[in-house]
């Protein structure tokens, strides 16, 4: 029984998605983040990494669940995903008419996203990697000072989400990555490192005893409230949470 286990596992692993997803290289470097590394002003330092060019779709996640049935919504333990996990699908193993194959998959928890990324021999991007990638537009790596960049990001926040989720297909940015803004919120590996106070008016890092070490992070570039809202969103989540607007994509270290 014990001997056969590794073989079983190997089989399961190899049964993963055969169609390789596209990953684009991003150079990294130093980057002025809204969450300074030391809680005050230090820039983020990023190593070169690869980022999935598109968020994971319903079709891709469906294939993953088929080959890893422990992640079906009727089998996954509640410590890994809440009650709304994959609730937009018609059945535990069927997408159905309202969950289109090319829409980004939503209603997935952090654990589920991690597991999927492992199946692609990847991981979730860190917040810095994500923020760095999302700062790009079609021609520049850092377009955040351009009001048009901010407007584009905000236009999505301003729209309610009762409409059907659009499919993937936004303009590719300078790295070749698309749909980081304007489609869905996306998980990051260190979503629980945000450590901003639940009451965002507190300027002097929250409850010092609660977040000791230097206090909760204050958010720099307060005028860049487009990114602020994303941080607020991520810091409201627990690892088991799923929402109708939250998906993910994966990253790989170099």
């Amino acid at each position: 029984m014990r001997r056969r286990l590794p073989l079983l596992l190997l089989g399961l692993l190899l049964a993963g998605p055969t169609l390789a997803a596209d990953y684009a290289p991003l150079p990294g470097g130093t980057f002025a983040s809204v969450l300074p590394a030391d809680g005050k002003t230090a820039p983020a330092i990023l190593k070169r990494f690869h980022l999935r060019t598109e968020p994971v779709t319903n079709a891709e996640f469906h294939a993953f669940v088929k080959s890893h049935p422990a992640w079906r919504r009727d089998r996954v333990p509640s410590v890994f995903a809440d009650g709304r996990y994959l609730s937009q699908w018609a059945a535990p193993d069927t997408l159905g008419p309202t969950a289109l194959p090319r829409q980004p998959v939503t209603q997935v928890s952090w654990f589920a996203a991690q597991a999927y990324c492992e199946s692609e021999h990847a991981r979730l991007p860190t917040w810095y990697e994500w923020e760095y990638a999302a700062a790009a537009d079609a021609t520049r790596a850092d377009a955040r000072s351009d009001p048009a960049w901010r407007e584009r990001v905000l236009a999505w926040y301003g729209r309610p989400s009762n409409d059907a989720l659009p499919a993937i297909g936004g303009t590719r940015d300078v790295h070749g990555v698309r749909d980081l803004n304007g489609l869905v919120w996306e998980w990051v590996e260190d979503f629980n490192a945000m450590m901003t106070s639940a009451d965002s008016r507190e300027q002097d890092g929250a409850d010092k005893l609660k977040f000791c070490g230097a206090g909760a992070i204050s958010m720099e570039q307060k005028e860049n409230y487009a990114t602020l809202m994303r941080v607020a969103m991520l810091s409201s989540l627990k690892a088991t949470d799923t929402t109708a607007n939250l998906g993910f994509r994966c990253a790989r270290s170099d």
Partner: protein
Amino acid sequence: MSRLLSTMLAAAGMLALAACTGKQAADVALPATAAAAPLSAPTDFGPPQGQPIHAVLTSPPNVPPAIHRNYPAKVIVELEVIEKEMPISEGVSYTYWTFGGTVPGSFIRVRQGDTVEFHLKNSPTSKMPHNIDLHGVTGPGGGAASSFTAPGHESQFTFKALNQGIYVYHCATAPVGMHIANGMYGLILVEPPEGLPKVDHEYYVMQGDFYTTGKYREKGHQPFDMDKAIDERPTYVLFNGHEGSLTGDKALTAKVGQSVRLFVGNGGPNLVSSFHVIGEIFDRVQQEGGLHPQENVQTTLIPSGGAAIVEFHTDVPGSYVLVDHSIFRAFNKGAMGILKVDGPENKAIYSGKEVDSVYLGDRAEPNLHAVSTAAKANAAGTLSKEDQIAAGKQLFTGTCSVCHQANGEGLPGVFPPLAKSDLIAKLVKEDKNKLIGIPLHGLTGKVTVNGTEYNSVMPPMTQLTDDEVSNLLTYVLNSWGNPGGQVTKDEVSKVRAQPAPAPAAEH
């Protein structure tokens, strides 16, 4: 062993606290002074009694019924955040973030001393996390720290309503100004233990400023504009979230002879409101929701993030307009609502229009035709005495007749007569320039006309031109038994060019 451990633990706790905060761990007690009594804390009404009550919440402009309870209870409040697109004005849509599906959010009514178990739900269709800060809560963030809720989730926290009053609640998630600007505010009333005095109508009105990228009433879907919000340049200033929310068939209603109480809040995010009801005086205002009311108030200031309770009686029928008296907001940005009062008239209090008569201001003659005829004739060099008299007669009404009366008889003891005036007769013969000087420079001091002494002030008629003066004087000279004659424009111009004579010495 255990006592040592606890002591060490406590000491370590103090030290760590000091290390973290960098302050002295020991508190310094303020020395007691004999003179001032300490600030008294609000009464604690004790633990909740009886069965838990599910609070009835209402949508604006309605208010939940008054509480008839004489003990503190546990009250369960369930409020859901819903992000939805609604019209902000005719043909203009906006994405609102709401408490309970409305702007302002649902009205919450509890009693002082109640223990409120607050459930904040965030609709699964929401994009954003939200929380709530209730100004009536004593506790960190007003509840905001304990209610941060992701979409599709629910948070719960409990607080005791220690202070009575009318309080604003709003979302406090980053960026706070945007959440408020999108409509995330409402009111919670904490009734005093004895309740509020009974009135016939209670209504819920809340002002807010809105910022869109497009102009006022520009059609289509309008997104929120952060730059305008930061610069405090609102596009709309509205009662209850939408233009027309309190007008037409949505107007507030009352009958004559009733009492009305308005709970008026101001969600902001930026503007202070100068709240006024046109045609009414507030008998009683709890300014800023405070305990001690002011009486007989015309316009009351409601701070951003504040509220007031105003009360008044209706006496006569009509449409009473609720406005922010920073008046361009009412007429150009939409800060207007109506209270329609029906019932019998009461002329003793307000009569409506009684008299419509002619008011003769300067140049009151409706038809100054003769004046223009004379002017043309003068220009053509064909001006006749008749033209002058006709023009002068028209000019006389309104300019001179006000004091000297229409037939030149003057006012005994006050204004000298012009009719059959011996002074005019004398001056036109002996000192015509002096006569001309009177309308030009005025006349002050003692003067005797037809045997009566007058000591008054006639101001200079600086508004008259030279030919107007010449026409007037010609008319006067040829009216009411005066000797006749003519004054020309040139004669007037010459006198005008002279310096004015010194006023007659007063004795």
